[in-house]
């Protein structure tokens, strides 16, 4: 019942789903498949993976100030198979906007609030996007690269 | 229904075994140490704050003030100053300040020291009423240690 790597690969190699699908060596990178999708493709990817039995592990924000882009990396794990899937997506740095996953994975609410705290990335449709770890009235985003204190 | 009836005696029996266990502990010896009156010996690798080693032959510290430990410290707690006295090849340490309030006892300084001049001390009751009480001057402590040894 646990899905196989190529089953996921040919799912993502469908038309218009993913920008690039690169299988990686777990011993070298720590995950088996690295899929990068457009911001719009995040929710369908999550729904597909959830249907296959994957769980959301973590959401990581990365601030690529050189390329003037904000990146968000979604980690998925599967309870029955050792597969680790990484779905990443980029958005322009001055208006970082990603759709929220909280309808598919309620656990994403906290991860997204935290990424919003640290990077200022807005997640459209998030029910309660207020600071999670920073004080309630925090308007600074510590992990942005432009020399935030 | 039958399991409910049996559950009561079995449950009561589990209570009794629990009480038997605590009663058996009641007569066991005390395992705690009356701290201020009795103290425990720290193992050799115990990590107290760092201190300079007194080199037995030269009766001086082996530190050559190369500041490698200062650079290796993640929380910049070490301040080293040295001076080159004439008649000697290498510099010797004149001031060695350790700010123990920020030290996280990771041992990076000891590993970085080329002439292994510092080691962890085995002191643990370091009470003080002010933050300055935790700024240790290791050169002065070394001098005191030398006096104590010479007595």
């Amino acid at each position, binding site marked *: 019942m646990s899905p196989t790597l190529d089953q996921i690969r040919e799912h993502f190699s469908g038309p218009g789903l993913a920008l690039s699908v690169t299988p990686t060596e777990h011993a070298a*990178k*720590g*995950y088996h498949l*690295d899929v990068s999708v457009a911001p719009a493709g995040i929710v369908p990817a999550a729904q597909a993976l*959830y249907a296959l039995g*994957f*769980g*959301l*592990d*973590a959401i*990581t924000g*990365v*601030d690529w100030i050189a390329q003037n882009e904000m990146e968000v990396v979604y*980690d998925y*794990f599967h*309870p*029955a*198979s050792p597969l*680790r899937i990484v779905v990443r997506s980029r958005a322009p740095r001055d208006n970082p906007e990603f759709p929220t996953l909280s309808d598919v*994975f*309620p*656990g994403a*609410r*906290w991860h997204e609030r935290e990424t919003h705290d640290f990077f200022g990335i807005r997640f459209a449709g998030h*029910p*309660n996007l*207020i*600071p*999670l*770890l*920073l*004080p*309630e*009235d925090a308007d600074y985003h*510590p*992990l942005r690269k432009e020399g935030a204190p | 229904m039958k399991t409910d009836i049996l*559950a009561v005696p*079995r*449950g*009561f029996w589990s*209570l009794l*075994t*629990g009480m*038997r266990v*605590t009663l058996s*502990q009641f007569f066991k010896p005390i*395992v705690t140490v009356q701290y201020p009156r009795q103290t425990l010996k720290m*193992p*050799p*690798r*115990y990590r107290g704050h760092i201190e300079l080693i007194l080199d037995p032959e030269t009766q001086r510290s082996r530190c050559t003030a190369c500041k490698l430990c200062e650079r*290796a410290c*993640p*929380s910049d707690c070490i301040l080293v100053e040295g001076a080159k006295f004439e008649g000697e090849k290498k510099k010797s340490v004149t001031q060695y300040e350790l700010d123990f309030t920020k030290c*996280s*006892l*990771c*041992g*990076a300084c000891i590993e970085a020291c080329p002439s292994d001049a510092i080691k*962890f001390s085995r002191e643990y009751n370091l009470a003080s009423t002010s933050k300055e009480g935790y700024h240790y001057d290791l050169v002065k402590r070394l001098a005191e240690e030398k006096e104590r040894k010479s007595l």
Partner: protein
Amino acid sequence: MSAPLKIEPATGSGETFVLNLGPQHPAAHGVLRVKMTMDGEYVMRAEPVIGYIHRMHEKMGENRPLAHFLPNTGRVDYLSALHYNHAFVGAVERAAKLEVPPRAEFIRVITSELNRISSHLVWWSAFLLDLGGFTPLLYAFDDREKILDLLEGLTGSRLTYCYFRFGGVVEDLDPGFAERTRKFIAEMRPRLKMYRQLVTDNIILRKRLEHIGPISPDLCLKYGATGPVIRGSGVSYDVRRAEPYSVYSQLDFDVPTFPESDSMARYLVRMEEIVQSLRIVEQALDKLPDGPVLGKVPRVLKLPPGDYCYAVEAARGRHMVRIVSDGKEAAYRLKLRTPSFSNLSLFEEASKGMLLADALALMGSLDLVIPDIDR
């Protein structure tokens, strides 16, 4: 609070009142605040408010060279510090492709498993303290003291260890460590039998925990709960088996799972894990090869650009360190995926409509360490 908080209308009948559990409260282990909207004794909505001990470890990882972040790893989850050392060190070794001598790997497994046992003992005593039993705490800390003495003799510290280095460990085993550890294992097994008689089989505890706080496997997937929480729901997901790291593939131990998915199942999983960890330490001591304990490491460590992850099975669940490197000396981005964060995130949904005492039993069974949540 300036920001308007959206509280859904209470589903209960009568009017509700908001009860603040924490941040200074005997049941919240550490500075965790839970805003409970209560209807009498029933919890309508328990919203954890976190961030009271947030130290921004991830920013510290970015503005200092890699080696300087090592002491931080022990402070993220101080109860399983060695697991967190292992994750960070493993991520750097995986990125820089450093060679770790086999003896060092075995020492890492031995010390990590001892750390897991000491963490489970702290969980067990704090959990029973929550349920009103005071004595088990003293017995558990008596046993834990033996582990701390073992690790103090070896590493020099008792709680926040900084013993692992890139490419191995700081120092080899101190003389007599193996014998003392075997003696400890021999003494621990009868103590575990005593714990079972005193607490596990106790009818009062059974009534307190059985059918309380059910967490379905699907809920675990939705919230990313791992470790004893997901294994208590019948899913045998253990990072040591799913993504074998270090030398766990050479050791045989089984992953305890209990399908009942209630607080009692999570309790039994952790008690069984102590037994398994004892087995692992015993095998690792038998198979301990000779040789160096620290591999060759370049003086200035620069990681090739890229995104590297390394996951370990910490005491509370899956801990992953992600290092995104751009080739410079410091990590460009350091992500710490901590298990308690996800385990707590399901508390709001899992505790709806429960009694206050049961909601606390559920929170105790999640085994939370607050700095692990806030980072």
